């Protein structure tokens, strides 16, 4: 019941923001739609939320998320500059390569968010995730040698640990 109520309140808040005005018709229509949505989605939405810990822990995590998110935005722009340089280059050169990267993460939110993170950064694109062998399938656009590939893998593992900390209790 708590989950449904929270989902209802969140969706109604979004409804009010996007509607842009408050009157009885808008609120009635919003209430009906948000009730249906919260009834359908409450369980599946909260299944992916694994935040635990006290209020202090959550404040630390939110601060941590802010820093991770800032680094993510910086990386997006850096990566976009590299790709756009290739787009406007007279003779663009690519060294595409598909690699598999093993992960130790068990948490589904963790895996999803990190795949998300990968898609926007460092010339990498998350193609697939193999849940049986716990492998990310990644496409790289500009990796020329095996040594560079290993460096990239080490960097990705470092980022993976940073993202994984969001969902682990030690913060």
């Amino acid at each position: 019941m708590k989950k449904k109520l929270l989902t209802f309140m969140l969706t109604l808040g979004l409804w009010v923001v996007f509607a842009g005005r408050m009157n009885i018709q808008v609120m009635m229509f919003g209430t009906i739609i948000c009730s249906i949505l919260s009834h359908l989605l409450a369980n599946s939405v909260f299944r992916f939320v694994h935040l635990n810990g006290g209020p202090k822990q959550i404040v630390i995590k939110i601060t941590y998320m802010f820093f991770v998110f800032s680094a993510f935005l910086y990386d997006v722009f850096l990566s976009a500059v590299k790709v756009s340089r290739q787009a406007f280059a007279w003779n663009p050169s690519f060294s595409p390569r598909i690699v598999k990267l093993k992960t130790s993460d068990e948490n589904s939110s963790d895996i999803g968010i990190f795949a998300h993170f990968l898609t926007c950064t460092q010339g990498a694109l998350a193609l697939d995730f193999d849940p049986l062998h716990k492998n990310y399938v990644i496409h790289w656009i500009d990796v020329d040698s095996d040594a560079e590939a290993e460096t990239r893998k080490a960097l990705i593992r470092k980022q993976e640990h940073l993202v994984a900390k969001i969902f682990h209790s030690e913060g």
Partner: protein
Amino acid sequence: MIDFLPILRQIVVYVFFLTGSYFLLSTAVGMIRFPDLYTRLHASAKCLMAGGISILMGCIVLEGIGFVSLKLIILLLFLLITNPIANHVIACLDHSNTMTPNPISKNRS
């Protein structure tokens, strides 16, 4: 005395809009010039997101603190969530159909 704040705001807005336009243009050019699906997805994932963020940030700065800015921030969040998912779904479908990327460095166009 000249009020510098609106001028500064206009400059910031222009910088955001120019940056966003550059990235969106590079997305379009990349989609045409890049040789295979995966490299094109790189263009659509990174440049489109950077362009979208820049344009929306410019709109937020132009609008100031208000209800419209809140809407724009929510749009920004939706963009951040949905763009990588769309790219991932296309790439995943393609990968599961066992297409491999072209190991070439030459532009076909």
